[in-house]
């Protein structure tokens, strides 16, 4: 079997997910050995940006019309498109304030010089193209990436956890941050896959992997309200990483709060 032709791309983001690929130290040789990498700008020059691809991995958020064009071009060339990282999957931190006109931010940050930037409200890949597989995380988990690639090589889509961080947290027997310490942990509504990394250090889950399937955000809001957190704090917390996700949009949260 020919090695699958692969492109690895980054839109707006911190490139941390591409870095995870490079950080697969022990497996890196096997990984690049099993793929025919045609484009990986972060790691190699001489990219072929015209060829047909079996798999495209795309990191980052779409914040410029040019990125939208690039993404659509990638989609058109790729049999499978994999969104890597919470920016690509859910919009990430760049999309946390989409209710405010981005031009305002540009003016604040760059002054009159900012006029050269053409921007659109930051959106995840799925707002523009069909995404075949989403690997969330800020950044992605190395293990999930490798298992995911292996499944794709095998011809399947990988089975990803569809349950909450709490499940992994309990499996590892970490003391509950929410119940024991009363801190605003988002473990109950955040999709697992990280092995409850933050709770393992005694820190709250900040929801960096995005919402779990079948999220009960109303109940989480209720818990945080009862613990005395303000509505502004709760909203900011819930909308840090995945604000464009339908269950976390402002109106839905408002309704959940009053339910």
């Amino acid at each position, binding site marked *: 079997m020919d090695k699958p032709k692969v492109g690895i791309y980054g839109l707006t983001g911190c490139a941390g997910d591409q870095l995870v690929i490079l950080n697969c130290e022990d497996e890196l040789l096997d990984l690049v050995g099993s793929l025919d990498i045609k484009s990986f700008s972060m790691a190699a020059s001489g990219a072929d940006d015209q060829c047909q691809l079996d798999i495209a991995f795309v990191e980052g958020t779409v914040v410029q019309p040019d990125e939208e064009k690039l993404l659509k071009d990638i989609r058109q060339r790729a049999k499978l498109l994999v969104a890597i990282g919470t920016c690509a999957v859910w919009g990430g931190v760049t999309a946390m304030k989409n209710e405010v006109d981005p031009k305002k931010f540009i003016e604040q940050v760059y002054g009159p010089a900012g006029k050269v930037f053409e921007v659109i409200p930051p959106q995840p890949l799925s707002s523009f193209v069909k995404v075949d597989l989403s690997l969330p995380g800020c950044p992605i988990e190395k293990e999930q990436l490798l298992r995911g690639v*292996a499944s794709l090589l095998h011809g399947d889509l990988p089975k990803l956890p*569809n*349950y*909450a961080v709490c499940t992994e947290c309990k499996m590892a027997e970490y*003391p509950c941050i929410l119940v*024991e310490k009363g801190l605003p942990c988002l*473990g109950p*509504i955040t999709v697992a896959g990280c092995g409850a990394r933050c709770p393992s250090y005694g820190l709250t889950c900040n929801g960096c992997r995005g919402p779990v399937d*079948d999220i009960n955000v109303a109940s989480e809001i209720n818990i945080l309200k009862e613990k005395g957190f303000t509505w502004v704090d709760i909203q900011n917390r819930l909308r840090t990483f995945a604000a464009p996700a339908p269950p976390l949009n402002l109106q839905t949260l408002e309704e959940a709060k009053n339910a």
Partner: protein
Amino acid sequence: MKIVKLPKEKLAEFLSCLRAFGEIHAPTKRGEKSHVFAPLKEPAGIELDYTRTILPLKKYFLPPMETMFNFQAEKGYETPAEESDKKYIIFGVHPCDIHSLKILDLVFGGKYVDGHYFSRRSKAAIIGLDCIPDEFCFCRSTGTDFVDDGFDLFLSDIEDSYLVRVGTSLGDDMVKAADTLFQEVTVQDREKYKKKSIQRGQSFQSEIQLQDLPEIMDLEYESQIWQELGEECLGCGTCSMVCPTCYCYAVFDELNLDAASGQRIRRWDSCLFKDYALVAGGHNFRAQRSSRVKNRYFHKQRGFVSQYGRPSCVGCGRCKEYCPAGVDIIEVVNKLRSETRV
């Protein structure tokens, strides 16, 4: 049953003697308030006045995640190399947790015997310890506050000593190996035990009435209570993970990068997860969270009774203590009951 007495000041010495029988696992502190069963390094690290550990004993016999087979193209599925034959002793197990093992034995035994579970089970000795209930405990109601079997030794606190019941031949060997530490039980000891037992019985703060619960659950199958619970429940799986008798698991294959070899894994699962009853093609027999919550209660309090003649709940209080949304089984059952009374 043979009963002997171990003075408390001899406990550390007894623990040292026990090391000859295997690695000792005992309740130890984790975080500020929690406890877990973990290998005991120093006798001083043991926390015998714990109420409950985060995870129950099932983690030893049905680990959260285990490799059932390795597989390789053109070879198929092969049993991984035998886990170590190391014996271990789980020390300080409360009666509810011992009862939970007896329940898991029923599930993993029967017509089809799960060797993965039982091979681990047969390597572990159980040394029980009595306890004083806290506000979450309701084992008196579930009939699991005392045990008559299921342990090798069982220690009951009588102030300055432990009364030690010897449950098995192995337990007797353990006592014999530390012969000089043990004393005969006196009349005063027996009186102390009985007094303690009464005190313990009186210190339960939570109660649940289970006798006719199966009928009540049938009657309240369409109750609004399930809807309300579905709204409260986060579906986070915490209750299933910490429950000593939740045994559901998922099975899947994990591939290595060669896409030709890998591992068949089994991992704890929960009936509260959305895709638990999903079949190929997309039909979900329990698509609503409320129906999944109901199923969980139904299985524990109704289904298990039909199957094994007793509910699978042992009253350990873990689900109540660890639920982030504060769902309280006692409240749920009481609500179901009062609905019936109307």
